[in-house]
């Protein structure tokens, strides 16, 4: 028989209102944990979608200047501006393609053959040579069009020319530069011949040392945009940072909503505890008269709140796991995100908040109980 025992018995004596108070905490814990998991899954999803983090600048023609293309000269200027860092100009277009009898449309990326290996990985087959009529196909395009005959070694007709698929690319995910997963990649020389085109859409600058990123950007600005804005420079790291900042604030916002429900739960604990104290004024007087210290009375009531909080946190934690599964599976489409340690941490976080809220709510009633005058408490009916 201890103070904890006494608290436990009082909780179970009034089991109905204890259960109601616990339900409040359970809901609060679930709200914090699942909304946290949801926010976290969104940022995990962004993290997975975006490859090539941080070391890339994408230079595009400023809108309205020069018809939206970059000339060979401008590319040379950029190359000079960035020093020893690699410059990969590319063009893109969409065109009708046919494989055997089948026809369809596809996105084409034209990249100088020598630069392709430093930008894209081949999963099977080989990179096309600069002079030959070879091309690469994106992983998703390959997966979706196999039954149409678009596969390694197939012949693809574009206009009146035929390209042979020399390789299939690895999946790359969504990028800020190019998105080749659903596209065909051809050597720029072939593109230039075929379409009689010698300009580029964009230039990718691979910056070797991430710390130089700002300096390189500045250097391009200096050379290209001295009089008017000829190019705009996109810094993938900067974009990524703002995306992550946005998802972080979504997480905080969602958890804030959860926290509100926990505050409501805290108020109900406060209410139940105040009721418990009021009902037991006489009992507190007796306990005090037979030598129970203020701190011990206080402890007894804090334990009571702790008890409610622990029950709520345990039940809430278990249910959060289920709710988290539903949220990640239904809203984010990938339940694996639930099992990421950063997601599971939100369950622990929610549970801890549940316990802390309960104990904090029990503090004032417990303090009130401890401050009662023993004689007046004894006289209480």
């Amino acid at each position, binding site marked *: *028989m201890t103070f904890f025992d*006494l608290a436990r018995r009082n909780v179970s004596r009034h089991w109905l209102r204890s259960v109601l108070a616990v339900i409040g905490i359970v809901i609060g814990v679930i709200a914090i944990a699942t909304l946290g998991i949801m926010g976290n899954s969104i940022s995990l999803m962004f993290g997975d979608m975006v490859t090539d983090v941080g070391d890339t600048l994408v230079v595009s023609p400023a809108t309205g200047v020069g018809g939206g293309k970059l000339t060979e000269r401008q590319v040379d200027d950029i190359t000079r501006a960035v020093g020893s860092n690699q410059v990969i100009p590319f063009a893109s277009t969409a065109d009708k393609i046919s494989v055997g009898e089948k026809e369809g449309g596809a996105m084409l990326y034209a990249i100088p053959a020598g630069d392709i290996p430093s930008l894209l990985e081949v999963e099977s087959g080989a990179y096309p040579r600069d002079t030959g009529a070879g091309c690469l196909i994106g992983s998703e395009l390959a997966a979706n069009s196999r039954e149409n005959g678009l596969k390694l070694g197939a012949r693809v007709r574009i206009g009146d020319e035929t390209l042979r698929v020399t390789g299939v690319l690895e999946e790359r995910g969504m990028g800020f530069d190019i998105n080749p997963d659903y596209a065909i990649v051809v050597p720029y020389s072939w593109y230039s011949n075929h379409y009689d085109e010698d300009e580029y859409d964009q230039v990718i600058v691979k910056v070797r040392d991430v710390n130089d990123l700002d300096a390189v950007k500045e250097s391009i600005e200096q050379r290209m945009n001295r009089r008017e804005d000829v190019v705009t420079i996109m810094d993938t790291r900067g974009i990524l940072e703002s995306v992550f900042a946005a998802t972080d604030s979504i997480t905080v916002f969602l958890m804030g909503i959860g926290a509100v429900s926990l505050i409501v739960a805290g108020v109900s604990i406060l209410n139940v505890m105040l009721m418990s104290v009021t009902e037991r004024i006489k009992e507190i*007087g007796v306990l*005090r008269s037979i030598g129970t210290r203020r701190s011990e009375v206080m402890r007894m009531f804090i334990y009571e709140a702790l008890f409610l909080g622990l029950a709520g946190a345990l039940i809430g934690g278990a249910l959060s796991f289920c709710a988290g599964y539903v949220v990640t599976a239904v809203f984010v489409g990938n339940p694996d995100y639930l099992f990421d340690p950063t997601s599971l941490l939100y369950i622990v976080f929610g549970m801890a908040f549940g316990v802390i809220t309960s104990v904090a709510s029990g503090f004032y009633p417990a303090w009130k109980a401890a401050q009662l005058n023993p004689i007046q408490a004894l006289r209480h009916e």
Partner: protein
Amino acid sequence: MPVISFEHVSKVYPLPAGDVVALDGVDIAIEQGEFVLVMGPSGSGKSTLLNIMGSLDVPTSGEVTIAGNRIGGMDDDDLTLLRRDHIGFVFQQFNLIPLLSVVENVEYPLILKGRQNGARERAQEVLEAVGIAASHFTHTPGELSGGQQQRVAIARALVNDPDFLLCDEPTGNLDSKTGTAIMDLLDRMNREEGKTVVMVTHDPRMTGYADRTIRLVDGRVAE
């Protein structure tokens, strides 16, 4: 040295309608082993006197010494520990803890002292000594008769082997036969165990049990 000593003790309750003087310059000395009755009309200050003896309350002025401890300047914790270690209370309304079984109620003061080992055995021993059958030990207080509850309350007061018992109308809620049985029990504890007993009562028949009677009138001791 007396186990309880009051020197010029006064207790004043300041009220908006004017001060209420509950005790007015009371001098009392109670020796170890005495059985003392406190009598007097309603409102004469009997309960106030007992509360101060029990360190539940402190005097407005005067000097109080309880079991060798001067209570002037003690803080709430000191007073509480004084109650816990030296004083046993018995109330008119029994005041057992409804959440606890009979034996747990008696065990409770021992647990407060941090005595887990042997607490149960000691509680059972004292319960048997006050005449509670072992079959009742695990009952809740509500399942017992008034007389039985008061016996349990006396067992709870005695379990810590206090220096004295303070009883505020312990038979006030009992019929006269049960009341007499309780008086016999207290009398036995006084004569056989040498327990000092201070008891407030309205019943003049109780004077036969006591070594002496203190009469209070308007907060003063009347000789």
